[in-house]
């Protein structure tokens, strides 16, 4: 946690210019098409790039995913093309149980995952092998040892309007919603990189990997530290507080007034 306590101020907290420039060059060199599709950087993926994993993934894909996404990832009416979505996208969608879909709806919902971690990684390897895309996040950005203060500020500016300041989730248009954030650090990282469903993409030029690490640090801090004031009532803010004051507070007091004014036997 020692990093988290370090000072910062709004201007020139660090100089991301160098990183940004490097990234920009990297991105440009990988080709404009790729840059337009996704802003994630291809991480080293030694463990999931083995041919064995890819073959395993291909089998799983044809059995479970191809009916919607096509045998060659080309997509269909019921599912988008997966060419170039990258391993991160597969790991997020399958690893949080969103894919395979239970039914068509306003949005894919989080549910118990259908595949083991191993199978998910194999699927990711197969999809990644057919087109470059954002890879799985590097473990050093997921350790929750970043700057929580920077993370909290970035979270409020980039995330809180949909996911709520406490990460409790919120409503979107036409029945869609931003889910409550209770995912693993890897899934949170992947979501930022790929922008699943209606969520915007936060590529590494927008939020650097260190920024993402800070955001994860802040979320981990929130999850791990107890609420100082007591039970948080779903972190829904004044609506929950108001209902609680009426039904618990005033309800209890009205019950007491009935006792108080009842005739003693």
């Amino acid at each position: 946690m020692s990093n988290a306590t370090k000072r910062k101020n709004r201007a020139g907290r660090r100089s991301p210019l160098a990183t940004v420039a490097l990234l920009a060059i990297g991105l440009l060199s990988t080709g404009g098409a790729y840059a337009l599709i996704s802003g994630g950087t291809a991480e080293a993926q030694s463990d999931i790039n083995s041919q064995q994993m890819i073959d395993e993934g291909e089998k799983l894909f044809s059995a479970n995913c191809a009916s919607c996404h096509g045998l060659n990832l080309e997509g269909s009416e019921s599912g988008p093309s997966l060419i170039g979505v990258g391993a991160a996208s597969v790991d997020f969608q399958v690893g949080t149980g969103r894919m395979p879909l239970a039914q068509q709806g306003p949005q894919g919902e989080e549910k118990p995952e259908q595949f083991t971690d191993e199978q998910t990684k194999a699927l990711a390897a197969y999809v990644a092998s057919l087109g470059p895309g954002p890879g799985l996040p590097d473990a050093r950005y997921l350790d929750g040892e970043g700057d929580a203060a920077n993370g909290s500020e970035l979270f409020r500016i980039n995330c809180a309007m949909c996911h709520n300041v406490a990460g409790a989730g919120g409503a979107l248009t036409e029945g869609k919603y931003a889910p409550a954030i209770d995912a693993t650090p890897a899934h949170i990282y992947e979501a930022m990189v790929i922008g699943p469903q209606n969520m915007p993409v936060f590529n590494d030029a927008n939020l650097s990997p260190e920024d993402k690490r800070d955001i994860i640090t802040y979320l981990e801090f929130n999850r791990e530290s107890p609420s100082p004031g007591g039970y948080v009532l779903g972190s829904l803010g004044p609506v929950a507080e108001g209902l609680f004051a009426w039904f618990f507070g005033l309800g209890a007091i009205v019950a007491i007034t009935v006792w108080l004014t009842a005739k003693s036997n």
Partner: protein
Amino acid sequence: MADDHGARDVVSAGHSARSVAVPVSASTETQASPGLGVVAPDRFENPGIPPHQPRVTDLDPKKEKRAERTVYILFYLSLAGSVFAIGAYFGFPIEENNIASTRMNNLMLGLGMSLALLAIGVAAVHWGKALMPEEEMIDQRHPVTGSPATRARAVEIFDQANKESGFGRRSLLRNSLIGALVAFPLPAIVLFRDLYPGNQEDPVSALSRTMWKEGVRLTRDPSGTPIRASEVTLGSAFHVIPEGLEESEHYLEEKAKAAVLLMRLRPDELNEIEERKTWSYDGIVAYSKICTHVGCPVALYEQITHHLLCPCHQSQFDVTNHCEVIFGPAARPLPQLPIAVDDEGYLIAQSDFTEPVGPSFWERASVNDN
């Protein structure tokens, strides 16, 4: 003790209900007009107070003793609660940078105080209910209005005061007094004019401009680093502030007007009108983040539907159609910031917004004309 009760103007009701004459005739009702009220001649008469039924604590000395015991045990419990709270204040101190200690302090202190308060309350109420007389007693009401004699005397006093002062007679004195009294608070009202000091910018002009102007770079919120067009990938949403905002004297006020959301769509998804075709750059568009309804930040961008949603009152804007309102109470589209790219590939503003950003105000229509 119970025998002393009915001594004065209060009449004890209970055990002798039938011997007490309960006045049920409508003595005062007949004086005031009932209006549309209907008073039936053969309506029921008030049957009087039913006989009092004693409590178990009145009948059984053992039960009385037990109630007494409950009450003092509760008072002692309250005492213990207070002592516990004081102990908790010192015993569960707040340690620096330790939220868990704050929680413990809150919890233990609160537990002690809750116990102290609730025990006193329950004990006192129980005492009142079980041991103090609960037999109902009667208080007579009197009409709220003063007695005729009092009212006559009041009128007399006013008359006398009027005569002695000449308030009614000396009309010039009276009218000039009224005039003076009406005028004297006016300076106090004028004094409030400088709640917004008079030497400051005219409100309409202040509301009509932002920090954006030609060549100002679009930078990230909050770091203030400039953004290259190439970094804004498809589906991205950047939260943007103008370059140099950090150095601005009025940081929050300027930010409250200049905050912008930057998004990249496929160019063919944008239905741009002719005069705004040059305001975007390769599918990158910038819109004011300040809702045209009452000013919340409209920042919920859905990258597939291209809808923007305001979380405060659910106004929705369609980015593909120049942020026209498609739902909710907002009346106007979000203002668009014309953008371009400078020599180094960074996004810059072509000019300020072409209309005032944020909520409507009375003089807004006149600004558009200028």
